[in-house]
Protein backbone atom coordinates (compact mmCIF):
# COMPACT_ATOMS: atom_id res chain seq x y z
CA UNK A 1 0.00 0.00 0.00
CA UNK A 2 3.03 2.31 0.46
CA UNK A 3 2.75 5.31 -1.83
CA UNK A 4 -0.98 4.97 -2.57
CA UNK A 5 -2.85 8.20 -1.94
CA UNK A 6 0.36 10.13 -1.24
CA UNK A 7 1.19 12.96 -1.26
CA UNK A 8 -1.96 14.20 0.44
CA UNK A 9 -2.63 17.75 1.55
CA UNK A 10 -5.24 19.19 3.85
CA UNK A 11 -5.86 22.71 5.10
CA UNK A 12 -7.09 23.41 8.62
CA UNK A 13 -8.42 26.46 10.43
CA UNK A 14 -5.72 27.91 12.66
CA UNK A 15 -7.42 27.24 15.98
CA UNK A 16 -6.99 24.76 18.81
CA UNK A 17 -10.13 22.84 17.93
CA UNK A 18 -8.35 21.80 14.71
CA UNK A 19 -5.60 19.99 16.64
CA UNK A 20 -7.61 16.79 17.05
CA UNK A 21 -8.44 16.74 13.31
CA UNK A 22 -4.81 17.43 12.44
CA UNK A 23 -3.78 14.54 14.71
CA UNK A 24 -6.25 12.22 13.00
CA UNK A 25 -4.92 13.27 9.57
CA UNK A 26 -1.24 12.64 10.35
CA UNK A 27 -1.91 9.51 12.41
CA UNK A 28 -3.79 8.05 9.47
CA UNK A 29 -0.82 8.74 7.18
CA UNK A 30 1.68 7.40 9.72
CA UNK A 31 -0.41 4.28 10.16
CA UNK A 32 -0.69 3.69 6.41
CA UNK A 33 3.07 3.88 5.88
CA UNK A 34 3.49 1.25 8.59
CA UNK A 35 4.56 3.15 11.70
CA UNK A 36 3.98 1.41 15.02
CA UNK A 37 2.10 2.88 17.97
CA UNK A 38 4.99 4.79 19.52
CA UNK A 39 6.31 6.17 16.21
CA UNK A 40 2.78 7.39 15.46
CA UNK A 41 2.67 9.05 18.86
CA UNK A 42 6.00 10.79 18.20
CA UNK A 43 4.70 12.11 14.86
CA UNK A 44 1.42 13.20 16.45
CA UNK A 45 3.35 15.01 19.18
CA UNK A 46 5.71 16.85 16.81
CA UNK A 47 2.88 17.99 14.54
CA UNK A 48 0.70 19.03 17.49
CA UNK A 49 3.51 21.10 18.99
CA UNK A 50 4.32 22.69 15.63
CA UNK A 51 0.69 23.64 14.95
CA UNK A 52 0.15 24.91 18.49
CA UNK A 53 3.18 27.16 18.00
CA UNK A 54 1.83 28.43 14.68
CA UNK A 55 -1.47 29.42 16.30
CA UNK A 56 0.12 30.90 19.41
CA UNK A 57 3.31 32.47 18.06
CA UNK A 58 3.14 32.80 14.24
CA UNK A 59 -0.48 34.01 14.14
CA UNK A 60 -0.56 35.29 17.72
CA UNK A 61 -4.05 33.88 18.34
CA UNK A 62 -6.81 31.62 17.10
CA UNK A 63 -8.60 32.00 13.76
CA UNK A 64 -6.12 34.48 12.29
CA UNK A 65 -4.82 32.24 9.48
CA UNK A 66 -4.79 28.73 8.11
CA UNK A 67 -2.46 25.76 8.47
CA UNK A 68 -1.73 23.54 5.47
CA UNK A 69 -0.30 20.09 5.99
CA UNK A 70 1.11 17.73 3.39
CA UNK A 71 2.12 14.13 4.03
CA UNK A 72 4.61 12.56 1.62
CA UNK A 73 5.51 8.91 1.65
CA UNK A 74 8.98 7.84 0.52
CA UNK A 75 10.62 4.41 0.64
CA UNK A 76 12.55 5.14 3.83
CA UNK A 77 10.63 7.95 5.48
CA UNK A 78 7.42 9.88 6.05
CA UNK A 79 7.73 13.60 5.35
CA UNK A 80 5.26 16.08 6.84
CA UNK A 81 5.26 19.65 5.54
CA UNK A 82 3.45 22.25 7.63
CA UNK A 83 2.87 25.70 6.18
CA UNK A 84 1.53 28.92 7.68
CA UNK A 85 1.36 32.57 6.68
CA UNK A 86 2.09 34.23 10.04
CA UNK A 87 5.22 35.85 11.33
CA UNK A 88 8.57 34.12 11.03
CA UNK A 89 11.14 33.52 13.76
CA UNK A 90 14.68 32.32 14.24
CA UNK A 91 14.59 28.73 15.49
CA UNK A 92 18.37 28.75 16.04
CA UNK A 93 17.84 31.37 18.73
CA UNK A 94 15.66 29.02 20.81
CA UNK A 95 17.73 26.93 23.26
CA UNK A 96 16.68 23.55 24.64
CA UNK A 97 14.88 23.81 28.01
CA UNK A 98 16.97 23.56 31.18
CA UNK A 99 16.44 20.06 32.57
CA UNK A 100 18.54 20.57 35.69
CA UNK A 101 16.16 23.05 37.26
CA UNK A 102 14.31 22.50 40.55
CA UNK A 103 10.54 22.14 40.41
CA UNK A 104 10.09 25.72 41.60
CA UNK A 105 12.38 27.09 38.87
CA UNK A 106 11.03 24.96 35.99
CA UNK A 107 9.73 27.29 33.33
CA UNK A 108 7.18 24.77 32.00
CA UNK A 109 7.28 26.35 28.54
CA UNK A 110 9.87 25.86 25.84
CA UNK A 111 9.22 22.12 25.48
CA UNK A 112 7.49 22.20 22.11
CA UNK A 113 10.52 22.73 19.86
CA UNK A 114 12.52 20.38 22.04
CA UNK A 115 10.01 17.54 21.51
CA UNK A 116 9.95 18.21 17.76
CA UNK A 117 13.75 18.09 17.52
CA UNK A 118 14.10 14.99 19.72
CA UNK A 119 11.38 12.86 18.19
CA UNK A 120 11.79 13.72 14.48
CA UNK A 121 14.80 12.62 12.45
CA UNK A 122 15.01 15.85 10.42
CA UNK A 123 13.53 19.27 11.20
CA UNK A 124 13.87 22.13 8.68
CA UNK A 125 12.35 25.60 8.92
CA UNK A 126 12.20 27.86 5.87
CA UNK A 127 10.70 31.31 5.71
CA UNK A 128 9.87 33.02 2.39
CA UNK A 129 7.40 35.38 0.80
CA UNK A 130 4.91 32.53 0.58
CA UNK A 131 4.81 31.86 4.31
CA UNK A 132 6.70 29.67 6.71
CA UNK A 133 7.37 26.03 5.98
CA UNK A 134 8.34 23.42 8.55
CA UNK A 135 9.47 20.07 7.14
CA UNK A 136 9.45 17.12 9.52
CA UNK A 137 10.97 13.79 8.55
CA UNK A 138 10.38 10.55 10.43
CA UNK A 139 12.35 7.58 9.13
CA UNK A 140 10.86 4.12 8.86
CA UNK A 141 12.77 1.56 10.91
Amino acid sequence: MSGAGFPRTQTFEGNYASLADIAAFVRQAASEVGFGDFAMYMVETAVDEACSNIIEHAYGGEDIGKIQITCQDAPTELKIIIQDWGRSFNPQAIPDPDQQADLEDLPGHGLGLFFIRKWMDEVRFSFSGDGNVLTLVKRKE
Partner: protein
Amino acid sequence: MEITSTPYKRCDLVKIVGRIDSGTAPRVQEALNLITEAGRFKIVIDLSQVDFMSSAGLRVLVNTQKTCKRFNRGEVVLASVPANICASLDLAGFVPLFKMFDDVTAAVGYF
Protein backbone atom coordinates in the same frame (compact mmCIF):
# COMPACT_ATOMS: atom_id res chain seq x y z
CA MET B 1 -12.15 15.59 26.56
CA GLU B 2 -14.00 14.80 29.80
CA ILE B 3 -12.87 15.56 33.34
CA THR B 4 -14.39 13.97 36.45
CA SER B 5 -13.30 15.13 39.90
CA THR B 6 -14.11 13.04 42.97
CA PRO B 7 -13.28 14.27 46.47
CA TYR B 8 -12.18 11.59 48.92
CA LYS B 9 -11.32 12.01 52.57
CA ARG B 10 -7.57 12.56 52.11
CA CYS B 11 -7.26 13.45 48.44
CA ASP B 12 -9.08 14.39 45.26
CA LEU B 13 -9.21 12.12 42.24
CA VAL B 14 -9.24 13.74 38.81
CA LYS B 15 -9.94 11.42 35.91
CA ILE B 16 -9.35 12.75 32.43
CA VAL B 17 -10.63 11.05 29.29
CA GLY B 18 -9.42 12.02 25.84
CA ARG B 19 -6.78 14.34 24.43
CA ILE B 20 -4.88 16.99 26.37
CA ASP B 21 -3.58 19.57 23.89
CA SER B 22 -3.36 23.37 23.74
CA GLY B 23 -7.11 23.50 23.23
CA THR B 24 -8.14 21.30 26.15
CA ALA B 25 -5.29 21.82 28.65
CA PRO B 26 -6.87 25.05 30.00
CA ARG B 27 -9.93 23.06 31.08
CA VAL B 28 -7.69 20.60 32.93
CA GLN B 29 -5.94 23.52 34.62
CA GLU B 30 -9.31 24.97 35.66
CA ALA B 31 -10.48 21.68 37.14
CA LEU B 32 -7.25 21.41 39.14
CA ASN B 33 -7.45 25.05 40.23
CA LEU B 34 -10.93 24.45 41.62
CA ILE B 35 -9.41 21.85 43.92
CA THR B 36 -6.33 23.80 45.03
CA GLU B 37 -8.40 26.96 45.52
CA ALA B 38 -10.54 24.95 47.92
CA GLY B 39 -7.40 24.38 49.97
CA ARG B 40 -6.94 20.77 48.89
CA PHE B 41 -3.47 19.88 47.66
CA LYS B 42 -3.37 16.07 47.56
CA ILE B 43 -4.42 15.11 44.07
CA VAL B 44 -4.46 11.86 42.11
CA ILE B 45 -4.65 12.32 38.33
CA ASP B 46 -5.91 9.22 36.55
CA LEU B 47 -4.40 9.21 33.05
CA SER B 48 -5.54 5.71 32.06
CA GLN B 49 -7.95 7.07 29.45
CA VAL B 50 -5.78 9.89 28.11
CA ASP B 51 -4.64 9.05 24.60
CA PHE B 52 -2.49 12.11 23.95
CA MET B 53 -0.80 14.80 26.04
CA SER B 54 1.21 17.64 24.50
CA SER B 55 3.60 19.97 26.29
CA ALA B 56 0.57 22.11 27.14
CA GLY B 57 -0.68 19.22 29.28
CA LEU B 58 2.73 18.62 30.84
CA ARG B 59 2.83 22.30 31.75
CA VAL B 60 -0.49 21.97 33.60
CA LEU B 61 0.86 19.00 35.57
CA VAL B 62 4.03 20.85 36.54
CA ASN B 63 2.20 24.06 37.48
CA THR B 64 -0.18 22.13 39.70
CA GLN B 65 2.65 20.17 41.26
CA LYS B 66 4.35 23.48 42.15
CA THR B 67 1.16 24.73 43.81
CA CYS B 68 0.57 21.50 45.71
CA LYS B 69 4.10 20.89 46.99
CA ARG B 70 4.52 24.45 48.23
CA PHE B 71 4.72 24.62 52.05
CA ASN B 72 4.81 20.81 52.08
CA ARG B 73 1.04 20.84 51.98
CA GLY B 74 0.47 18.16 49.39
CA GLU B 75 1.43 16.51 46.14
CA VAL B 76 0.14 15.54 42.73
CA VAL B 77 0.56 11.84 41.92
CA LEU B 78 -0.23 10.12 38.62
CA ALA B 79 -2.12 6.86 38.17
CA SER B 80 -2.14 4.46 35.21
CA VAL B 81 0.13 6.52 32.98
CA PRO B 82 0.02 5.14 29.41
CA ALA B 83 3.42 4.21 27.97
CA ASN B 84 3.43 6.97 25.34
CA ILE B 85 2.70 9.66 27.91
CA CYS B 86 5.35 8.18 30.16
CA ALA B 87 7.81 8.60 27.29
CA SER B 88 6.79 12.27 26.98
CA LEU B 89 7.23 12.85 30.71
CA ASP B 90 10.61 11.16 30.48
CA LEU B 91 11.79 13.21 27.48
CA ALA B 92 10.75 16.40 29.31
CA GLY B 93 12.72 15.29 32.38
CA PHE B 94 9.56 15.27 34.51
CA VAL B 95 9.57 11.65 35.68
CA PRO B 96 11.34 12.52 38.97
CA LEU B 97 8.68 15.13 39.74
CA PHE B 98 5.73 12.75 40.02
CA LYS B 99 5.07 9.58 41.95
CA MET B 100 3.35 7.18 39.59
CA PHE B 101 1.06 4.29 40.50
CA ASP B 102 -0.10 1.42 38.35
CA ASP B 103 -3.66 1.72 39.55
CA VAL B 104 -5.90 4.43 40.90
CA THR B 105 -6.69 2.59 44.12
CA ALA B 106 -3.01 2.41 45.08
CA ALA B 107 -2.64 6.12 44.30
CA VAL B 108 -5.60 7.05 46.52
CA GLY B 109 -4.27 4.67 49.19
CA TYR B 110 -0.96 6.55 49.17
CA PHE B 111 -2.48 9.63 50.81
